[in-house]
């Protein structure tokens, strides 16, 4: 039983990583606390709901294509948001960026209500994905396995891009020291825009995947953004690999919490975050 639950938690962790990775990348480079990330995730879910019947409905290929397409759409929305609004406040007070992303949350939520109403919408999985793999006691839904595969794929490609490409080097350098990167003649604005777009893309596909197992309604953004921030904060803001471990940890804690104390699982996660934060600050002052 516990093993099943831990495995379940790890799978949820991979999914959490998918959301948190974009958030932490954006923060690392541009220092923007992007509340709108949850809204982009929600848009991904609703757009997938809207689009998936149109693209080879009922086949896994069509389903994944529509998720990918929605990721691209959300990325474009993120790109527009960055270019038109966010770009103007990079040099303003930190709180101004918070106001702007909070405004985006309010706007996206009401637009979602306007277009899709207040009720849950459901996305029907293609038959080929709705089964499960059974190994002894273990019951692993095919869809979740597919999601984990995608999560790992994203992780590996992010790692490869960061490690081996020039863009990755610039990005890592920008996370470490923005001023230095600018001094070296790299246009910071382009780096910010690119990272924001990629982050939004990740939020979009995460939302697309979630559409098939979450209850998709206009409150999805609030549910996910808090969890995503917890993961990012535990992992260390801007730290991609920290986010991975934090996501897996939070996933497992949440899943075990559901087993032992279902009403307290979020409390346990918040406690975990509080302890990690305070412990980290103690260690820092101890040095």
């Amino acid at each position, binding site marked *: 039983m516990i093993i099943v639950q831990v495995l379940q938690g790890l799978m949820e962790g991979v999914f959490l990583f998918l959301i948190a990775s974009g958030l932490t990348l954006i923060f690392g480079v541009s220092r923007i*606390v992007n509340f709108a990330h949850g809204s982009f995730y929600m848009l991904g879910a609703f757009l997938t709901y809207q689009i998936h019947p149109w693209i080879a409905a009922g086949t896994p290929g069509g389903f994944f294509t529509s998720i990918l397409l929605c990721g691209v759409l959300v990325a474009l929305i993120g790109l527009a948001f960055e270019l038109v*609004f966010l770009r*103007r*406040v990079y040099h*303003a*007070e*930190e*709180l*101004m960026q*918070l*106001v*702007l992303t*909070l*405004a*985006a*949350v*309010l*706007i996206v*939520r*009401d*637009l979602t*209500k*306007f277009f899709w109403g207040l009720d849950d919408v459901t996305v029907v999985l293609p038959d080929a994905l709705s089964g499960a793999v059974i190994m002894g006691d273990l019951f692993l839904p095919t869809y979740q396995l597919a999601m984990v595969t995608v999560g790992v794929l994203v992780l590996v490609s992010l790692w490869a891009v960061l490690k081996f490409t020039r863009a990755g080097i610039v990005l890592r350098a920008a996370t470490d020291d923005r001023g230095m990167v600018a001094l070296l003649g790299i246009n910071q604005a382009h780096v910010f825009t690119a990272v924001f777009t990629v982050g939004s893309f990740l939020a979009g596909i995460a939302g697309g995947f979630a559409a098939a197992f979450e209850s998709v309604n206009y409150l999805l953004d*609030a549910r996910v953004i*808090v969890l995503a*921030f*917890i993961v990012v*904060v535990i992992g260390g*803001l801007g730290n991609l690999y920290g986010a991975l471990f934090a996501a897996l940890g939070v996933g497992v804690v949440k899943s075990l919490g559901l087993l032992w104390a279902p*009403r*307290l699982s*979020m*409390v346990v996660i*918040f*406690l975990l*975050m*509080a302890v990690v*934060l*305070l412990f980290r*600050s*103690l260690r820092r002052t101890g040095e």
Partner: protein
Amino acid sequence: MAAEHRRGNASWSIDWRLVAATFVLVAIALHLSPPLVAFAIIEVMIFALYASALNLLLSYSGMVSFGHAVYFGLGAYGLAITIAKFGWPMWAGVVAGPLVSAFFGLVYGALCVQLTAIYAAMLTLACAEITFAIVFQWFDFTGGDSGISGHVPAMMGLSPAWFGMVVLVVVTICILALWRVVHAPLGLTIRAVGENPVRAAAMGHGRKRVQLAAFVISAFLSGVAGTLYGIFHGNVFPEYVGVLFTIDGLVMVLLGGLYSFGAGIYGAIVYKLLDNVMAHYFEYWQLVIGVILVLVVLVSPAGIAGLVSTVAARLRGRAG
């Protein structure tokens, strides 16, 4: 120079003419308006105090609280629990409410000032969520999700107009006290720490101690607002401690205009006006608030407070 301009540098003294005029105006409005409007005015006043208390943190101390509803709601719970569970008399409950908030502000604040920036903000969120979970689930003590009611007669049994007068007096005193705090040496220290903790530390003002003081004051005044709210409705629910009340407060301050004293007041007026009036005609009023916030950032970062002071300066210029 930029910092000076940004934080505003209004004169120290209280403009008593303005205070008296506002007081009389609101008092007249309370007595002349039908009950429903009086209710709205009372609600605006209570939230003006709550948002102003939150604004002390946001605009001056360099802290962000993602869980301020806790201190608002615990005021109402302090009142309800001491009366309903401990059998205290009403006046004792009224005193207890804000003190409970201040106590939690002290405990949680002491933890949160160990961290800075977004990390501290996330810790305020964690404290708030944990408190909410306890309030929501400890049925025997807090009444769980059905809350507590019947411990005080709603509005102390007064008419809306006269209860409104009580709220007006309390809120006025609290906001004047907050003005004193902001402009007293303590307030200057809080602002110094908020603007440049390193320099403030070099002058002997440790960031943590000063921020904690600001946090406790803010929690106490939020508790006063929450206690008033608890008396206003004659009940208390977990939502008072919940995330929606936190967001309400934040949006009010941001709408009102960061880095100005009046942010909470202007923000509460506009937000509650939109909430109470516009919501009847237009379902998507939050969209309107979002658009206003975007405009605030892009056009007038000083928010409504900035617009008000620009207009006031222009009027004054014309008069002189």
